[in-house]
């Protein structure tokens, strides 16, 4: 580790390509860097100057050298390292050749941009280090390992309205009270009355006559229905006695009566 630069390297980096010690020891580990910018920053920091005073040209040289060596070692180099290398080669030529005033952006601007980016990454890296050095919970300061804990207990709050209560009682009462069927006082035609009427009227008819014709004209509504039912029963009784003949052509078809037995 860091044999080529004993004691002078304050970074936690392994041997870098810039410090070859011999073919056997020399290792290039691109995996050590999180991308080209990271590698560039590492190289820049090796110059041990303020990033604002860094020589971009020198930095470019180092990067290109690094990639060239890695290529010689036939190491696989991620595409973005190569893209950066190409871009830096372009930047290098731009910086070294006499300025072309029409070039936009100018190589100087590109170089400045790279410098600013390196400053920002460097600043964040320093900030992270300072953050990690703070008194961290669980390492430097401790909270209670076994707090009692605070609990929220849900308490059921039952609600019901008086209306609900009364409806319920009504429901219970209605359900369980003995079911007494109150028949409303209503007019009916008794079987006796119907017997007497049908017997009397049928004697006077010779032709088939519908049963409805035997009902009193004035009866209507439920009274009429009652009269129909009673008259039907009366007709059955008279037929049994042989005083009436019934005829019906089909189920629910009109019912005809005629005096005398068939």
């Amino acid at each position: 580790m860091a044999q080529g630069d004993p004691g002078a390297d304050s970074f936690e980096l392994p041997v870098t390509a810039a410090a070859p010690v011999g073919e056997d020891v020399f290792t290039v580990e691109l995996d050590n860097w999180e991308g080209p910018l990271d590698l560039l920053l590492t190289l820049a920091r090796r110059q041990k100057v303020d990033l604002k005073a860094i020589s971009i040209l020198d930095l470019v040289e180092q990067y290109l050298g690094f990639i060239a060596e890695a290529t010689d070692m036939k190491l696989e180099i991620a595409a973005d390292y190569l893209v950066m290398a190409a871009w830096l080669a372009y930047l290098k030529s731009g910086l070294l050749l006499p300025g072309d005033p029409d070039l936009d952006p100018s190589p100087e601007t590109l170089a400045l941009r790279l410098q600013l980016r390196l400053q920002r990454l460097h600043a964040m890296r320093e900030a992270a280090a300072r953050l990690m050095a703070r008194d961290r919970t669980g390492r430097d300061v401790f909270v209670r390992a076994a707090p009692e804990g605070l609990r929220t207990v849900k308490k059921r709050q039952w609600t019901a309205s008086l209306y609900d209560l009364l409806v319920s009682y009504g429901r219970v009462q209605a359900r369980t009270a003995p079911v007494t069927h109150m028949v409303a006082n209503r007019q009916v035609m008794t079987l006796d009355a119907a017997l007497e009427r049908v017997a009397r009227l049928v004697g006077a008819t010779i032709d088939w006559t519908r049963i409805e014709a035997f009902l009193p004209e004035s009866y209507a509504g439920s009274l009429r229905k009652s009269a129909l039912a009673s008259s039907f029963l009366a007709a059955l009784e008279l037929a049994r006695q042989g005083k009436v003949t019934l005829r019906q052509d089909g189920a629910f078809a009109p019912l005809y009566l005629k005096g005398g037995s068939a």
Partner: protein
Amino acid sequence: MSASAGDAPDDFERAVEAAVFAADAPMSPAEIAAYVGDGPVGDALAAIAQRHAGHGIELVERGGRWHFQTAADLAHLLRRERDEPRKLTRAGLEVLAIIAYHEPVSRAEIESIRGVQTARGTLDVLMEAGWIRPAGRRDVPGRPIIYRTTPDFLTHFGLESRKDLPGIDDLKAAGLLDPVDDALEDALEDAIGNDELTRAELVKDGETE
């Protein structure tokens, strides 16, 4: 014993306090010393306990081991109750109504009025709500517990007294009986000649919760 409480705290005492605080179980003086080094652990513990006495946190000893805990009289603060409104079930309402109209009343009597069995939980819920309470035992074989409504019941339903509960006739006049009555008759008509169905319908009512 540290002479002057409230003065500049001594470092050993601070260390003991921090160690006991951060521990995940009560610690004996020997265990504490393993963290903070040798020193008058006992004196430090006594001084810390004294300093916290009467405040929200207490340093207490249990079987030779020390730990911090919330002051016992403040334990009620550690639980916060939040009301969660729940509507009484139909069965609950019916049982409550029966108790209100017929009190004092036993469970068997409630069941005979309702025509269905009453789940144990129904009475529990009503007691939890604070609306009914056991009121002794009926002096009959088996000595069943009888239930009454509580003053909270009156308060919740906005009643001055039980006499404010409308009578059966009032309920009928208010139409509170009729709609149910009709519905029941319809059901009976549908089910005529099918006694089993009627029975099943009636029992299903209410207790299915």
